[in-house]
């Protein structure tokens, strides 16, 4: 007789919502060894692993879970790291319900196996252990990677593994990109990110911070003056979109990028011990329904806001955020205003925001995205009294490189045009992640970084041995 499957995932211990809404410590505490082994037992070890097909970096999921089952955690980590350089990060921030776990066979009748939780467990298990680094024979080729976010880090890991000399250029003072400035500490502890980056450095990857390619050197100069043989652009989606509503420049209106960068990267939550200030506000509206919006709303609560509203023009069913983030936000007391769209900002004579005028919406016919299009209900305007509003409706590509590289093809939104292999219109230049696709997820960017790494490797190997 087939063994009985436990219908639900083993829950992960969490900080109590009342307590965690006031601190920046991590919300989800992770599996213990016992819980991890018990959850691994739920995996059927399918011969045809659909879960793996749902993973943008094709982690050998049943293989690593089988090793967890046997308590061979180090070996499980090796399996994951073959294709994913940052398991402790991905286990925390991947939208597993739309990827691996969506295809899990157990999940057809029950809850799927907690693949993300297991990945996180394995990632955490090895993150602080001294790993053996296998150094490949140097090829002599030099690759420049622009941007140290998920795409750049994943690309760097593979290229270094294959023996290329890799330098990552990062514009900010700390490497990690969105993992550092965007995703908050309570969801992704910064020490985990830095630890994963340290491991990359041990593989020989060099990271130059405070280095803005496009300003200190053009791409042509990287090739001609600094001797790089290939370049990968992983500059992300760094330019915040605003709604272009009247009053958008009142004090108190933030982009999510600014609000989160102040809190995460600049540690404004410990002001004045840290020097960067932040305006928290008593009542805060966050515009948008994605992960960034959830992060901003939950950060505002933790910084001391009394009431925080998510203002979203569609309904609950269309929220693009990870399910877990939505649940966490609700548990912590974030209020959701669905089918509501902002129309203008209201401010006082000193230029400070005092309210947000909104209009009620209803769902009409499906639009290009397949989701029902929200339509305004005439005459339903009302004013939400808020002193801070955080705009989290998406980000576009940063223009600093494309502006200084006229022969790099971009589309009308300013995204770099790259083929399925990451190849751009410029010889030796590859790109991947949000700068190509528009804002997406950490893991998709990592997947694109890996694909580009393979293309760069093939491109360099086709040149034959490096000539000096």
């Amino acid at each position, binding site marked *: 007789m087939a063994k009985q499957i436990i219908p639900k995932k083993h829950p992960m211990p969490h900080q109590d919502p009342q307590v965690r809404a006031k601190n920046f410590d991590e919300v989800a505490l992770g599996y213990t060894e016992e819980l991890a082994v018990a959850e691994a037992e739920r995996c059927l070890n399918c011969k045809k692993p659909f879960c793996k097909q749902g993973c943008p970096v094709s982690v050998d999921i049943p293989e690593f879970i089988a090793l967890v089952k046997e308590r061979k955690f180090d070996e499980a980590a090796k399996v994951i790291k073959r294709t994913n350089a940052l398991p402790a990060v991905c286990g925390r921030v991947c939208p597993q319900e739309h990827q691996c776990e969506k295809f899990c066979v157990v999940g057809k009748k029950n809850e799927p196996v907690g693949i993300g939780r297991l990945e996180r467990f394995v990632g955490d298990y090895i993150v602080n252990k001294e790993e053996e680094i296998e150094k490949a024979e140097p090829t002599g080729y030099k690759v420049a990677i622009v941007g140290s976010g998920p795409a750049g880090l994943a690309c760097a890991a593979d290229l270094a593994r294959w023996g290329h000399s890799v330098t990552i250029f990062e*514009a900010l003072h700390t490497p990690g990109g969105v993992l550092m400035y965007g995703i908050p500490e309570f969801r992704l502890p910064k020490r985990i990110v830095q630890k994963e980056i340290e491991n990359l450095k041990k593989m020989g990857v060099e990271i130059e911070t405070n280095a803005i390619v496009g300003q200190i050197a053009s791409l042509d100069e990287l090739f001609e003056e600094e001797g790089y043989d290939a370049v990968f652009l992983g500059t992300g989606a760094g330019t915040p979109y605003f709604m272009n509503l009247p009053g958008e420049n009142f004090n108190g209106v933030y982009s999510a990028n600014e609000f989160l960068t102040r809190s995460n990267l600049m540690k404004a939550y410990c002001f004045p011990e840290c020097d960067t200030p932040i305006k928290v506000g008593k009542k805060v509206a966050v515009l948008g329904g994605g992960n960034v919006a959830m992060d901003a709303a939950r950060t505002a609560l933790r910084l001391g806001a009394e009431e925080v509203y998510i203002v979203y023009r569609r309904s609950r069913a269309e929220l693009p955020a990870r399910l877990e983030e939505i649940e966490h936000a609700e548990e912590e007391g974030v209020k959701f205003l669905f089918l509501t769209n902002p129309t203008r900002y209201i401010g006082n004579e000193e230029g400070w925001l005092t309210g947000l005028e909104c209009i009620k919406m209803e769902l009409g016919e499906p639009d290009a995205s397949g989701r029902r299009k929200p339509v305004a209900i005439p005459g339903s305007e009302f004013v939400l009294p808020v002193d801070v509003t955080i705009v989290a409706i998406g980000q576009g590509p*940063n223009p600093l490189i494309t502006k200084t590289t006229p022969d790099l093809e971009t589309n009308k939104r300013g995204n770099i045009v790259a083929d399925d292999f990451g190849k751009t219109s410029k010889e030796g230049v590859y790109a991947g992640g949000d700068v190509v696709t528009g804002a997406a997820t950490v893991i998709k960017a990592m997947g694109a970084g890996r694909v580009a790494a393979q293309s760069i490797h093939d491109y360099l190997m086709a040149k034959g041995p490096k000539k000096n």
Partner: protein
Amino acid sequence: MYQIISKETLAPAIHQYEILAPKVAKKAKAGQFVILRVHENGERIPLTIADYNREAGTITIVFAEAGYSTKRLAKLNAGDAVQDFVGPLGVPSHVERFGKVVMVAGGVGVAPVFPIARDMKAAGNHVVGIMGARNKELIFWEERMKDACNELLVTTDDGSYVRKGFVTDVLREYIESAGKPDLVMAIGPLPMMRAIANLTKEYEIKTMVSLNSIMVDGTGMCGACRVTVGGETRFVCVDGPEFDGHLVDFEEQLMRSRKYKSEEQHALNRGGCGCGGGGKCHG
């Protein structure tokens, strides 16, 4: 870390540092800016480039002690280092042969005006410098400006040096006596740049101003530096810092510049006395 090669105090609470940053120095142009952090938990402070030396690999910055972070920066000396230093940021000044160019500098604004004036002169313009400060003590770089300009007019608000009057008074007198220049460029406090822009609007003279707004990253990522120019929102860090002074919404900029005033005071209370802002110092 980025070493401070030399320090000079130019006037009370106004300092000049040369900082070793060869990659920045290699590319720096007049009109651009840098961002620095004094220490690990420091703010990112944007400062306009006052000069650069490509051979020595240094950037010169000049700043007034205004808030907590600049006061902390001022405590450093030659041989010390700042934690982070990034640049060059922003679009360089547009320099070409315009004809006659008036460069107006208010207060510390003389520092960023200097390299632009020098480039304007080198491009074949007749450059008239107008520099003003509250009083004689606060005047610096007069000799440098004399070299960078074909004519230099100096004024003080209180008349303690050369003459009494604002830079707007000097500009108006100059236009009335010498005729309209082809371009005016003004750098200084927001009210001064607004006054210059209002004046040149009367005379219909093209006027550029350089904004020093609140920023975080300086690379177009956060939008803290938003400014309305001709009815459209622009980012000072990547679209500027120089804009057409007749199109800038100065009222909005003034309001935005006061955004963190209370926090600044809070930080200063802590920094000034070491009581941590708890009021133990009774200050």
